[in-house]
């Protein structure tokens, strides 16, 4: 809501600049989105009086006007507006002026005729289109007759006011009005505020003889109407129009404007009906019936829902209660009798109706948050009074009241000790009670206890904590001391799981992979790729897009999306890892279980190409090296083994391995299937994904000192020809098993399957290292062990030792 600085000053004696006032409001009440002064940035825009005009010789719509701008000679201005006429006072942008959007106006020629400036529409001097009175939307604006040519226009149009745009939180409905804001400011600045109260001059006959209302008070706890006869519809006086457009509302006519003005002033939405359009003299407040329809003021048709509250006459709905009136019974040219409604509607119904019909109006916004239930009649009276004063209406005697349930004030006990204990302050009883009284609350003090009777308008205050907020904010958060919690000591330590997760990230970063964070919501297809276990998908009931509709059951597909993003931007070398959750769901459960995974993906080269380092495209063994190094960092207890897996549909059947620890599968690694690469539009990519939770849960090796032998080691190399299907693992396992007591390590140093070996065979070569911890090894002992292992290789694996 945009609130006028000038309007505030009419009630409150403040000596602060608008910007300072705004900051104070922001620090003490509600957020401020900005402070604007409509005339800011405008220059040399004055009142002009159109002395005469004639048609432009070379145009069918331009006029050449002689305009008195308070100088010795009139200015000649060419104007294209259809509504320009002699005798009007108009807005003139003089040569050298600045209008909206910092546009500069210069002397010019229009189709050959000199034009010294421009006659402006309101939009051209910065008014938003939707606040410009309908009559002037398509043309220039006409100023009042008493405007003086040559004067700056700003004061005539209320443009020197400062408008403070309040962003009101859902709890502070009271701040959606001048009066509510004034109550807060009175407390903030500790100044008295004098609000005016209406005095209605009644005439004619009792309303009760002309109108009856029938109200379901569960839907509308208060429902009040007044009747004003013989109103004369006309444009509102300037001051009233200015109030409205400065608040962002379009002036329409005096009757409608009065209802809007009262809403801005009191926060009470009103509705004005044309009484003569009622069918009968009875008005009902009820829920809509199935099949009922309503055309609202904005000329949209609505199929009503049985949960919508409507105002109805004998024939049917005439308004969507608290949201928008109906077109049929609205104020239109020819209206003479106005029924003014001032009511409270149940907020939840209003909220849902506004959502259902996508009609979020100034009225619904206020009813949703709650209006001042103690001020419903006052707002009604104030509107009636104004219709009498500004539209010559005869206010009929009395009001009809369909329901009048005004809630009791909340009465809350709070102790000074509690206030200071929670806020961390040392406030005195006087300070606290003064703050609460300045908000308009009644306070009774008894020893340490304050009994606070809260003003009804503050429907957000129910419990002592609510009062604490009032005390704290009015006292000023800036004045609160800044301390740290004391009390019993607590340990701040990471759990083993958290430590291992950090270690995982550090390990992979050290191995050259950058951490990625991808989207956990993906497409159904990608969610189901690279599955490590069976699972149902978990789908959003109402996703924003198909791209983010299903919870991932793998991390790799997200990394492939990332690689695709990079690849599309010509970034060819990408090495990423991601630590994140996958979501597995069992049939019959609504909620998935969440499992921590760790995954990596590399495309292009890991080691950057350089002047002394050729590009070396990533391959299976590089990725395997990374996985092995990572698992070594995690010191899982048990052998890590790799078994070929040709069955994952998204993976290359010949270049994929399951990763096993102590025989348990914890994940996979390998090259993605070329068809998957094609689908993601990426090059050859190697990936791994491991169940991080499983790694965390596995027993870990303890660190233990192992004596480093002081005696020399002896190495022997062995090269052999074996069949192609004999694996390295088989050879190494056999050597380790049969290598004898002093075998320390077996290291593969060559693999060859080129032209020099027979078809179906490959050559493998290993270095065997022997060492004794306690004495120098004798050559003979090594030779013996080596011969033995060579024989076993020949016998068991059919190796030909070379």
């Amino acid at each position: 809501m945009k609130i006028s600085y000038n309007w505030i000053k009419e009630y409150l004696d403040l000596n602060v600049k608008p910007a300072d006032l705004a900051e104070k409001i922001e620090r003490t009440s509600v957020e401020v989105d900005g402070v604007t002064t409509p005339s800011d940035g405008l220059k040399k825009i004055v009142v002009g009086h159109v002395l005469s005009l004639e048609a432009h010789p070379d145009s069918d719509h331009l006029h050449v006007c002689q305009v008195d701008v308070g100088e010795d000679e009139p200015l000649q201005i060419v104007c294209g507006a259809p509504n320009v006429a002699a005798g009007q006072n108009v807005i003139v942008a003089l040569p050298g002026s600045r209008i909206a959007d910092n546009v500069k106006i210069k002397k010019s020629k229009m189709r050959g005729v000199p034009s010294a400036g421009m006659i402006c529409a309101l939009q051209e001097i910065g008014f938003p289109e939707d606040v410009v009175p309908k009559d002037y939307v398509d043309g220039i604006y006409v100023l009042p007759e008493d405007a003086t040519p040559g004067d700056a226009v700003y004061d005539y149009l209320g443009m020197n006011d400062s408008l403070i745009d309040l962003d009101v939180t859902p709890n502070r409905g009271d701040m959606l009005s001048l009066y509510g804001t004034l109550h807060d400011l009175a407390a903030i600045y500790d100044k008295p505020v004098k609000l005016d109260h209406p005095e209605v001059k009644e005439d004619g006959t009792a309303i009760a003889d002309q109108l009856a209302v029938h109200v379901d008070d569960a839907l509308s706890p208060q429902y009040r109407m007044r009747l004003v006869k013989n109103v004369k519809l006309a444009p509102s006086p300037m001051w009233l129009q200015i109030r409205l457009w400065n608040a962002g509302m379009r002036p329409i006519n005096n009757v409608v404007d009065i209802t809007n003005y009262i809403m801005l002033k009191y926060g009470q939405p009103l509705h004005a009906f044309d009484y003569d359009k009622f069918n009968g003299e009875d008005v009902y407040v009820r829920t809509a019936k199935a099949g009922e329809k309503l055309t609202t003021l904005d000329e949209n048709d609505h199929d009503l829902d049985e949960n919508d509250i409507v105002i109805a006459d004998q024939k049917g709905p005439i308004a969507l209660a608290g949201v928008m009136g109906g077109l049929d019974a609205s104020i239109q040219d020819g209206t003479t009798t106005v029924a003014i409604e001032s009511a409270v509607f149940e907020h939840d119904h209003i909220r849902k109706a506004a959502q259902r019909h996508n009609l979020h109006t100034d009225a619904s916004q206020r009813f949703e948050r709650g209006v001042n239930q103690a001020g419903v009649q006052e707002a009604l009276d104030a509107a009636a009074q104004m219709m009498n004063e500004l539209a010559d209406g005869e206010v009929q005697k009395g009001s009809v009241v369909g329901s009048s349930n005004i809630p009791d004030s909340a009465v809350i006990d709070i102790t000074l000790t509690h206030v200071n204990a929670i806020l961390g302050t040392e406030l005195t009883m006087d300070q606290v009670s003064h703050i609460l009284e300045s908000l308009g609350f009644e306070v009774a003090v008894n020893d340490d206890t304050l009994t606070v009777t809260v003003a009804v308008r503050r429907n957000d205050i129910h419990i002592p904590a609510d009062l604490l907020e009032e005390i704290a904010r009015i006292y000023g958060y800036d004045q609160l001391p800044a301390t740290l919690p004391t009390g019993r000591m607590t340990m701040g330590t990471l759990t083993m799981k958290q430590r291992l997760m950090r270690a995982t990230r550090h390990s992979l970063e050290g191995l050259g992979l950058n951490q990625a964070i991808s989207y956990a919501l993906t497409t159904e297809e990608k969610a189901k790729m690279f599955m490590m276990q069976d699972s149902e998908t978990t789908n959003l009931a109402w996703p924003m897009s198909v791209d983010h509709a299903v919870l991932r059951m793998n991390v790799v597909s997200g990394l492939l999306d990332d690689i695709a993003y990079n690849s599309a931007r010509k970034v060819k070398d990408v090495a990423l890892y991601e630590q994140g959750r996958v979501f597995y769901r069992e049939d019959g459960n609504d909620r998935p279980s969440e499992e921590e995974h760790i995954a990596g993906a590399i495309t292009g080269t890991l080691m950057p190409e350089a002047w002394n380092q050729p590009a070396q495209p990533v391959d299976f063994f590089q990725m395997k090296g990374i996985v092995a190094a990572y698992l070594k960092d995690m010191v899982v207890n048990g052998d890590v083994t790799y078994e070929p897996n040709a069955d994952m549909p998204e993976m290359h059947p010949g270049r994929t391995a399951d990763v096993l620890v102590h025989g348990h599968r914890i994940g996979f690694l390998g090259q993605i299937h070329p068809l998957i690469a094609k689908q993601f539009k990426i090059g050859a990519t190697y990936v791994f994904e491991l169940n991080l939770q499983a790694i965390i849960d596995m027993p870990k090796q303890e660190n233990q000192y192992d004596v480093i032998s002081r005696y020399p080691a002896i190495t022997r190399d062995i090269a052999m020809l074996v069949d192609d299907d004999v694996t390295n693992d088989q050879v190494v396992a056999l050597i380790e098993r049969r290598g004898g007591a002093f075998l320390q390590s077996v290291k593969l140093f060559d693999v060859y399957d080129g032209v020099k070996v027979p078809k179906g065979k490959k050559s493998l070569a290993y270095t065997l290292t022997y060492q004794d911890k306690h004495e120098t090894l004798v050559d003979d002992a090594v030779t013996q062990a080596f011969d033995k292992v060579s024989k076993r290789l020949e016998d068991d694996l059919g190796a030909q030792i070379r």
Partner: protein
Amino acid sequence: MSLKDKLSELRQRGLADIKESSDLKDVNQVRVQLLGKKGPITEVLRGMRDLDAEERPKVGAFANEIRDDLANALAKRKEELEKAVLNAQLAKETIDVTLPGTPVAKGEPHVIQQIVDQIEDLFLGMGYQVLSGPEVEEDKYNFEMMNLPKNHPARDMQDTFYITKEILMRTQTSPMQARTLEKHDFSKGPLKMISPGVVYRRDTDDPTHSHQFHQVEGLVIDKHVTMADLKGTLQVLAHELFGDKFDVRLRPSYFPFTEPSVEADITCFNCGGKGCKVCKNTGWIEVLGAGMVHPNVLKMAGVDPDVYGGFAFGVGPDRFAMLKYGVDDIRNFYLNDVRFLTQFTKKG
């Protein structure tokens, strides 16, 4: 010519020869010539036989002195020449040290992770536990136990991805307040925790909105926790993340699960508080929401609000990173362009 004179002359000639030797081979030759078995000194010494017994030791000592001088001169010359050889070798080995170093593969932590880690470390040091909760939550924990019953208008503030009527993607890390409060045994000490994690909102991704982002929830519940403690804690957080120059201010706000509720602003990075475009001329930038835990939240979790109370806060690492590094599009965090990921290398 006396023997002594001979020796003196020998010394002079020898030293000149040594000086003239130009490489190691020369030096060796001179050495053999001067000091060898057939060399002049040996020869001179052989002539000692003819000397008086009185003269002999004197000449002998003199001869030894000369032999030592020559030997020393030879060694010195040899060292000089060796050094020259080495220097020549090193000169030949000179490389262009301005050629780039061989690149190594090195990964970086994600910028959001860096901020989360920094927050975690700060609060660990203040005795907080770090807890993580489910990303797929129950409506009960995400909303109801946070004092947001069904139909509460504030639910409109958060667009939610529902899976079923009761199961949803958590919209905040606040459900960890309820989950932790339910379990905590206050007889064992106060509850001090932070809970970092991923949260989800039903938003269309654009430069300032992401359907997935991060939050860190903080909660302290004890017998005597004050709002001043909240202010002090947030100040420490701002100083840790942004620097000591940054000030914190609290403003009233509204969250259903705290009362009083505040939003915390910190001094604008861009202008240092003077007022600029970034801070809309206020000098302040909103960074987090906080407040004193609402009694209803405590009650619903089975904690007596008359005995225990405290504060909670929620910070957005994404927003912090955007502010701290001037990142203008939140989607950068989730698209993982390596040119983006590798920009944030400053540790600590």
